[in-house]
């Protein structure tokens, strides 16, 4: 569904993303992990059209969408959320979700009904009347997800939807992401919360200094010496003995 080949993005002297390739098959949940500053969010921004990549191609459903404007990419069915949540702060939760729903429905009543249905799927139904600025972190993360979901995307790019959540909220969010996949939406997520990554994803890519240093099934990736070194420093793999890091 999504193929990224040799993507690079350079900011001044920094290669934020360096020849990174990745592919996501339809119906999967794929995770992109890596230490802070590895270039994950920049990678998302390039894929979703918010940054122009300096090299590489992005194909979505067989179509070359490299460098296309973000709103056009969204209309093709690939919608991103933001790591730092970007609510329409003064609008109610319902109005926030309706902005997404209006991409499918021209009429107020249809968009409203669709938005309410989406809110129920992500457990936001009791919060519909609240202003987005009054939400907790967990609420804002869900709102990001709900708004994107309301556009009926084929592929969701979720940027750290678990960050800042407490353990029980993480469990709920994992359930929501799984539900979304079961509804037929493919998911590519950036995540730091390993508990979530391990339980959700079928395939993991590890980014470090802008490069993909490992990929594969969750169990294999977390015991990969290159990955352990990227997180814990050079030599850590030997100490760790390729053990049971999770």
């Amino acid at each position, binding site marked *: 569904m999504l193929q990224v080949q040799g993507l690079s993005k350079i900011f001044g002297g920094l290669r934020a993303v360096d020849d990174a390739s990745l592919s996501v098959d339809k119906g999967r949940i794929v995770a992109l992990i890596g230490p802070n500053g590895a270039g994950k969010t920049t990678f998302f921004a390039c894929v*979703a059209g918010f940054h122009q990549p300096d090299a590489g191609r992005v194909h979505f459903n067989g179509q070359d969408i490299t460098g296309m404007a973000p709103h056009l990419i*969204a209309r093709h069915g690939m919608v991103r959320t*933001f790591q730092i949540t970007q*609510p329409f702060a003064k609008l109610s939760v319902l109005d926030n979700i309706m902005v997404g729903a209006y991409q499918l429905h*021209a009429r*107020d009543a249809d968009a*409203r009904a669709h938005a309410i249905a989406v809110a129920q799927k992500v457990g936001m139904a009791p919060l519909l*009347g609240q202003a*987005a600025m009054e939400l907790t972190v967990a609420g804002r993360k869900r709102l990001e997800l709900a708004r994107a979901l309301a*556009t009926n995307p084929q592929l969701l790019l979720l940027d750290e939807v678990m960050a800042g959540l407490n353990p029980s909220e993480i469990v709920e969010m994992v359930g929501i992401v799984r539900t979304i996949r079961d509804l037929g939406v493919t998911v590519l997520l950036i995540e730091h919360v390993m508990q979530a990554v391990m339980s959700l994803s079928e395939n993991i890519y590890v980014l470090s200094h802008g490069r993909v240093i490992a990929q594969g099934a969750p169990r294999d990736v977390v015991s990969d010496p290159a990955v352990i070194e990227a997180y814990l420093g050079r030599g850590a793999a030997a100490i760790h003995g390729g053990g049971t890091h999770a």
Partner: protein
Amino acid sequence: MSDHLHAARPVPWALHLSLLALAVAFPFVFPSNFMVNFGVMALFYAFIGQAWNISGGFAGQMSFGHVAFFGVGAYVSTVMQMRFGFSPWWGLPGAALAGALVAGFVAVVSFRAGLKGSYFALITLAFGEVLRIISNSVDITGGGLGMLIPMKAGVANFQFEERSGFYFLILLFAAASVVLAEWLRRSRFGARLAAIRENEDAAKALGIDVLSEKIKVLVLSGAMCGMGGCFFAQYFLYIDPTIVFGVDKSVEMLLVSMIGGAGTVYGPLIGALLLASISDITRVMTQIQGLSLVIYGGLLVIIIAYLPNGLIDLFRRRGGQPGGKR
């Protein structure tokens, strides 16, 4: 879950219709020239304030230079009439088109360059000044002398025997602008404008063509300002560069909207009633020119400090409308 959310946003028909009835009755209850003139000015400010509000309030694109579209409307309609012999009624669509074109040009140039917030506000200010200087220096506009439209009473000449003729015309404009604002509150276009006002990146991520929506709304607002300019020229029968391209008009438009409540349906009307009242009261009581704007500026400071969403907050405390501005 609260059930009222499932229903579409209710249209406050009782409010709309009773205000309309009051406005229609006004010139019959107060037929003096002074009071009808007050009504005309209040509705005129309400109309151009609403024009500003549609782009500045609903879409959050603050402009200091809406007078550019207003002045172009005033000049195009007057030039059509005085130099090319068109009926002044043709000036109305001509002014709307001219306002729309200039607004479209300003929007394309500045939004394509990614100007936002205060940068956008400043470039619109500059466009207004450029047009003032142009109108001051070319022949067809009469330069600094301005243009005088001869008195020829008669509805065919856009001149009414009774002042109330102007009153009902501007009432029609103002009512139409309220209908437009009400539509924005409950339409897809309005929802997209609110999204753009709140967060452009998030709007883009959801598939909204931010650039084209911003151009559309400024064109709409510019067309309305152009019509306001045509009305102004026909009401006062005289225009010159400092009057119709003066920064004070831009300021009045945005003050009316912000004091009343930017991004709300009735904000500009509330602000306009206040501005027209203050301006008439100070004119009657003192000789000091521009005192009304001094008072108005003071009020703005107080209102921003205590009622940041504008005077309209006084009226909807009990409503407790969630999500505020829409």
